């Protein structure tokens, strides 16, 4: 994992001092709220429904055990005892006092962390594949490039006041696990026929009000040119992106308006002057950064561990967990474990301070002291010996972190919604909870198989509803909370945007709506066909017909909303 050198330390330390003084000036009214707002947002501090929320950067989702322990400490000392992992691989704390925020940043700096550019109209935290470096299907390890991009984008003087937020994702495996197609820039690492390493560059993807899948503007960009080429993209966007209308300010609107070809032409024209300039990456720099991402001290192990195989055969619950929560590893005898943060009854992505401490311990005992965050709001221990999976499972289970539901119905992606977010049109956490309660049965979930259910509390799409196989969007109708349902969305190599099935539903109807969608699937599926494949084969119509065929009776109220 990347470790700060004296320069990283210095920059983060100076940031803390700068921010502390900004807070001081705000509190003494030297800074107006309008002036301060932008500054605090670039430090991840939002004003939310009840309190300030602090979003801490987890660069490309990688954490060390001491960093996770620091979160636990922050949760206890400055918050109400828990944190919330997000679809951007970051962590958020919901109950922060402005006066204490500089102290939190100072504490974070001691473990090489910060909240720089986790919000605001600048280049946000770079996201990547949570299995980077260990995935069996990896082509090139994206982590060194992600770190190089992190440094380059940190306090980039020209791009701190862009028309809108700017998100970059990078993926290095055959399977896209970083949702690159719905980012402002999506980089897919590849080799050209000569074997050189580079990127396929996609721009203009995004969700929100206008969901768009990114366009490829360059099939192959040699890695040395990553920074100068991105600089050119950002410069074109900075000057030509719309600033008159916040809803049209993302780069996706610019790319759509002028066309991907014309956009690419302008980028190339901008690039020509800086290509091969000092921003060109060097082999030395790549090596410097890459040395932090070398393999840990793996043991030489047999490809399969017999004790593990026996346990799996004997214990169905363990086998279920292995099937869903354990992923193939490129080193023989090892596996990557996904700790589910989706236990029924808990808001998706939430972890208590004690659980954070526990995860830190677990990672030290089983996985070289490293933890990763997934954009599905789960955690990963990436380097676990097969022979230790059983012991790890038992411990994780005791802490509620081993629900065998990864990729299943209750592994719901869910934004904070109306419970916390001031932009929400509707609550989303209670909807996730009501659905999870109704379909808590693990055998049923395993029978349904791979399915992605994503929920956002408003059109901003923080819960990725557009790319959920089933997407739920909170909408406001005459001041009441309603939910619009879409199906057929997908992430990964065949990213697609879901189609809305029809009029929206009330909160208590939602579990029944999901049940009906699943009924259609179960009836229509061919053997081994996943939900998404059935939707793609038979289309939206049969689902729509069945869901709306008869009224949904409200005999089974669910969740908090049921009593209102």
């Amino acid at each position: 994992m990347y470790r700060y050198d004296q320069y990283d330390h210095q920059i983060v330390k100076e940031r803390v001092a700068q921010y502390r003084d900004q807070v001081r000036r705000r509190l003494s009214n030297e800074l107006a709220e309008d002036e301060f707002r932008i500054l605090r947002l670039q430090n991840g501090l939002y004003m939310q429904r009840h309190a300030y929320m602090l979003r801490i950067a987890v660069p490309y989702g990688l954490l060390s055990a001491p960093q996770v322990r620091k979160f636990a400490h922050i949760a206890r000392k400055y918050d109400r005892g828990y944190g919330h992992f997000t679809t951007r691989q970051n962590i958020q704390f919901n109950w922060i006092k402005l006066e204490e925020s500089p102290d939190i940043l100072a504490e974070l700096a001691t473990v090489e962390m910060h909240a720089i550019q986790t919000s605001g109209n600048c280049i946000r935290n770079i996201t990547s594949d949570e299995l980077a470096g260990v995935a069996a299907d990896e082509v090139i390890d994206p982590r060194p490039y992600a770190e190089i991009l992190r440094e380059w984008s940190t306090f980039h003087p020209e791009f701190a006041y862009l028309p809108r937020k700017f998100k970059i994702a990078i993926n290095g495996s055959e399977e896209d696990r970083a949702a690159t197609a719905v980012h402002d820039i999506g980089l897919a690492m590849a080799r050209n026929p000569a074997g050189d390493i580079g990127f396929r560059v996609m721009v203009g993807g995004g969700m929100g009000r206008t969901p768009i899948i990114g366009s490829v503007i360059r099939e192959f960009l040699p890695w040395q040119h990553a920074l100068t080429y991105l600089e050119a993209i950002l410069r074109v966007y900075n000057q030509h992106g719309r600033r008159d209308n916040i809803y049209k300010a993302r780069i996706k609107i610019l790319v759509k308006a002028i066309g991907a070809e014309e956009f690419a032409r302008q980028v190339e024209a901008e690039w020509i002057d800086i290509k091969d300039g000092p921003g060109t990456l060097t082999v030395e720099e790549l090596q410097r950064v890459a040395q932090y991402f070398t393999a840990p001290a793996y043991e030489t192990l047999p490809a399969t561990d017999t004790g593990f195989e026996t346990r799996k055969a004997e214990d169905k619950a363990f086998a279920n967990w292995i099937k869903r929560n354990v992923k193939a590893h490129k080193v023989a005898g090892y596996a990557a474990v996904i700790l589910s943060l989706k236990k029924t009854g808990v808001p998706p992505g939430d972890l208590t301070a004690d659980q954070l401490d526990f995860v830190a311990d677990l990672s030290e005992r089983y996985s070289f002291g490293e933890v990763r965050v997934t954009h599905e709001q789960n955690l990963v221990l990436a380097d676990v010996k097969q022979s230790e999976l059983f012991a790890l499972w038992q411990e994780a289970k005791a802490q509620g972190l081993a629900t065998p539901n990864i990729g299943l119905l209750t592994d719901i992606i869910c934004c904070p919604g109306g419970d916390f977010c001031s932009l929400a049109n509707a609550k989303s956490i209670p909807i996730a909870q009501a659905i999870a309660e109704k379909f808590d049965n693990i055998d049923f979930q395993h029978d349904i198989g791979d399915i992605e259910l994503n929920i956002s509390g408003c059109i901003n799409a923080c819960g990725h509803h557009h790319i959920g196989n089933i997407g739920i969007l909170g909408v406001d109708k005459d001041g009441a909370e309603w939910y619009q349902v879409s199906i057929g969305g997908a992430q990964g190599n065949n990213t697609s945007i879901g189609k809305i099935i029809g009029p929206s539903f009330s909160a208590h109807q939602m579990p029944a709506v999901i049940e009906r969608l699943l009924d259609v699937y179960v009836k229509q599926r061919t053997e081994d066909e996943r939900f998404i494949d059935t939707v793609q084969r038979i289309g939206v119509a049969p689902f729509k017909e069945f869901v709306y065929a008869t009224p949904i009776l409200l005999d089974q109220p669910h969740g908090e909303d049921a009593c209102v």
Partner: protein
Amino acid sequence: MPVSNSEIIKNRAVVADDWTVLRLSEGDTADSVTIPAGKVILPLAVWQARRTELQGRTPLGVWLNSDAQADAIKDDLEQFEVIGINFPIFTDGRGYSIAFNLRTRYGYAGELRAIGDVLRDQLFYMQRVGFNAFAVRADKNIHDALKGLTDFSEKYQASWDEKTPLFRRVQRQPVTQD
């Protein structure tokens, strides 16, 4: 209506300023506005409309609004002693790219002045892309704003002020924290 601030930050010091920034008021047009005598920084539109009349007048300055492009004056750079870039609001970041292109792409070497909604917490970035003068918003303390220029002592990426990125400039080595 001519606006003149008596002090600006220039080359990292607060100095007296004897330039006048000409802004068109309602009813003014670029063709007809009266250009005051003395050191004046003209709106781009006035320069473009009255180029023949103004050519050869020295000293002269021009200012670009944030929606302009650096290439609008790329062939006239030697005419100006000052080029201003206006920030209609401090969150409008286009001026940073204009400045960068004026300096690096078109080689402008004279005074590059940020005008408009110019505040302390943006100055560090502004100087990085090429501004060397700042007409800080009149209701703010200019001596306080001066501190904004030194918020950071290091930077990762190259820009106009620092021609080489950190990775080419220094030997970077892991450190253990005490």
